[in-house]
């Protein structure tokens, strides 16, 4: 009896030892991968799923959310200090990542992707080529796409029907619909339903919305010689269209609307339709948070001279100063893999996954069938270059939108604003050394 007890204890101890060595044998035991992440449903999903990666590799993953507007400055200060604190940075490619790449702050990924010992997940063919190609700088790939938004029209089916307005199929009809639906519904002399809700907060937010109209009307930022042409007749037409909508048919708080404010304004029923990122559709359809779930229709933004649909690209990058680059690579390739994206899709509202496999999955159809057609059509016609791809993008767009805000406030005409903006952009470019030779 006693003997068998001793034997049992021995076996248990032996088992424990074996298990322990098995755990110790995991590839990245003791390695910590620290990531600076944008607050986004995708990040929330990764936080919930990271345990799987940790169990598989033994690495510990810390996903730290940093408010979107302050993330680039935190990241840059880390880079400049050559700090190895963060291994992975999650950021917008056009607004931030490209600048990191040209300044030499982030690691090219090609040598990791071509190394079969490290690359278990990356299948570049699973991403849309536009996204991958954009992140190639001087023949090197600098990031893996985590999510990509596009813009489309989200409209209140019930209101459009009630007031007999048809879903806009041209730019002119957007204005007409916005005008027809800016209403005093209860007859107290005050407008309580606004036709359209748009972001108009200076900086990245206004840029996201306004640039769609700029592009649709044929405007652009620079000509072939990198001279700014933001006051061209086309650009003025597009900007006038946008300013007119904001001034006349948007809720009065719109000049301070960023992503969240605009999303909430629409979800609260303040406006009959909005043009914004497709990720908002996931929120709008959530019956627990949204007042308008099930009442929203989706359509592609109609073209004017061309389509003015923006595509954003938010990717994962590896810091040049990371001490665990290999582990970091395995993590970002896991995080952007088909498998992980499919799982993320199940647990969070992410219609903006970048994996084509996830797009065509049943779970995507089940969750997002109401807007997936509009979303896919938008992505197909979407334009990644809604802002210039330069390290100075953030400064350039902030400067332009600050002038447009003056036009929104009625202190300048659109033409005056864009003339000033054009001068200011020229100055920025000159100081950055684009016209040196």
């Amino acid at each position, binding site marked *: 009896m006693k003997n068998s007890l001793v034997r049992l204890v021995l076996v248990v101890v032996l088992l424990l030892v074996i298990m322990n060595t098995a755990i110790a044998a995991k590839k990245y035991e003791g390695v910590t991968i620290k990531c600076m992440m944008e607050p986004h449903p995708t990040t929330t999903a990764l936080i919930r799923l990271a345990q799987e990666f940790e169990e598989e590799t033994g690495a510990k993953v810390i996903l730290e959310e940093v408010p979107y*507007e*302050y993330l*680039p*400055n935190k990241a*840059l*200060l880390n*880079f*400049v200090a050559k700090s190895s604190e963060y291994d992975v940075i999650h950021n917008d490619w056009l607004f931030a990542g490209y*600048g990191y790449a*040209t*300044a*030499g702050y982030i690691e090219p990924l090609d040598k990791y992707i071509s190394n079969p010992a490290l690359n278990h997940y990356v299948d570049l063919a699973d991403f849309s080529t536009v996204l991958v190609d954009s992140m190639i700088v001087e023949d090197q790939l600098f990031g893996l796409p985590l999510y990509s938004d596009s813009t489309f029209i989200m409209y209140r089916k019930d209101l459009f029907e009630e007031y007999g307005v048809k879903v806009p199929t041209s730019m002119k009809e957007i204005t007409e619909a916005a005008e027809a639906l800016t209403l005093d519904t209860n007859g107290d002399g*005050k407008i309580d339903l606004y036709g359209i809700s748009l972001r*108009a*907060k*200076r*900086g990245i937010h206004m840029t996201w919305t306004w640039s769609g109209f700029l592009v649709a009307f044929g405007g652009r930022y620079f000509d072939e010689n990198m001279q700014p042409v933001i006051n061209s007749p086309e650009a003025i037409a597009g900007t006038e269209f946008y300013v007119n909508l904001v001034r006349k048919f948007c*809720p*009065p*708080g*719109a*000049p*301070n*609307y960023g992503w969240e404010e605009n999303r909430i304004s629409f979800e*609260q029923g*303040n406006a009959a339709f909005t043009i914004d990122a497709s990720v908002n559709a996931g929120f709008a359809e959530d019956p627990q948070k949204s007042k308008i779930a099930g009442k929203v229709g989706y359509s592609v933004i109609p073209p004017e001279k061309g389509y003015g649909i923006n595509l954003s690209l938010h990717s994962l990058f590896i810091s040049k100063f990371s001490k665990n680059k290999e582990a970091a690579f395995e993590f970002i390739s896991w995080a952007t893999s088909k498998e992980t994206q499919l799982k993320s899709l199940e647990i969070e509202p992410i219609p903006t996954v970048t994996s084509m496999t996830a797009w065509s999955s049943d779970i995507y159809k089940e969750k997002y069938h109401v807007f997936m057609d509009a979303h896919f059509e938008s992505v197909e016609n979407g334009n990644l270059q809604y802002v210039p791809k330069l*390290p*100075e993008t*953030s*400064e350039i767009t*902030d400067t332009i939108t*600050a002038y447009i*805000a*003056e036009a*929104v*406030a009625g*202190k300048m005409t659109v033409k005056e604003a864009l003339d000033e903006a054009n001068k200011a952009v020229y100055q920025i470019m000159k*100081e*950055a*050394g684009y016209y040196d030779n």
Partner: protein
Amino acid sequence: MENKKKKRSRKMLLYVLPAVLVLLAISIYPLIRSLILSLYNYNLLRPDRIRFIGLENFGNAFSDTNFWNALKRTAYFTLFGVSIELVLGMLIAMLLNRKFVGKGIVRSLMIVPMILSPVAVGLVWRILYDYDAGMVNYFLSFFGVSQLAWLGNQSTALLSLIATDIWQWTSFCFLVCLAGLENIPQEPFEAARIDGANRFQSFRYLTLPFMKPVLLVVFTLRVIDSVKMFDLVFIMTNGGPGRSTETMNFFIYQTAFKFFHIGRASSYAVIITILMSFTVSLLVKSLKKGGNDLV
């Protein structure tokens, strides 16, 4: 004798050394460093173009309308806000400078806004100013004032920030003024009353001169604080709409941490530091005079 003195001074040096070291590390070094940086073209996104450019940053600053406008906004915010705070604080202090039941409680309640964190104040006021859900519009509707997007309108945004600042800091002015009022000797007032001075006269010729040094101290402190103000702008409007609430400090922050022109931002900071040192030294000088007048 000589030796002893030397020893003594060496000993004294040892005692002040920690303070000097701390000062060097957290105040003198950054100051010198920002002075140096202000002479460079230093953009974090363009590490290849970092170079010495002399006083170019300063020249550019003075020809930059955005710089001047930011400076004007800061001056407007400071003068407008601080003078109202001072007047209100003084009036409330005079109102409460008497014996009544519950004075202690009233005084404690008055200082609540002051002890709140500016970030919390900013967040709360952002909700109060909200177009649809805000209390400000709700209460104003009783007086027939139509709804306004206080922070979403270029002409009201800065005023709304000033109002919040006044709400928060009037209590500070009140507190210091009350302490000053309580320390004024009563005899001159009695004499004045016997001589037939009315209330306004005794305020004009007695209270005010007695309070002058106190008011100057409050004014100086509030001016310094107000010029430094950053949190309210950051939380409530982020400089917007447009540039309408882009005060100097926010402008510097934006230049340094949004566009990463560290050199240029340093030059702005140097300019504002010089301006502030000048203003404050003027105030302190008149404070000294004011004190001498009285004693």
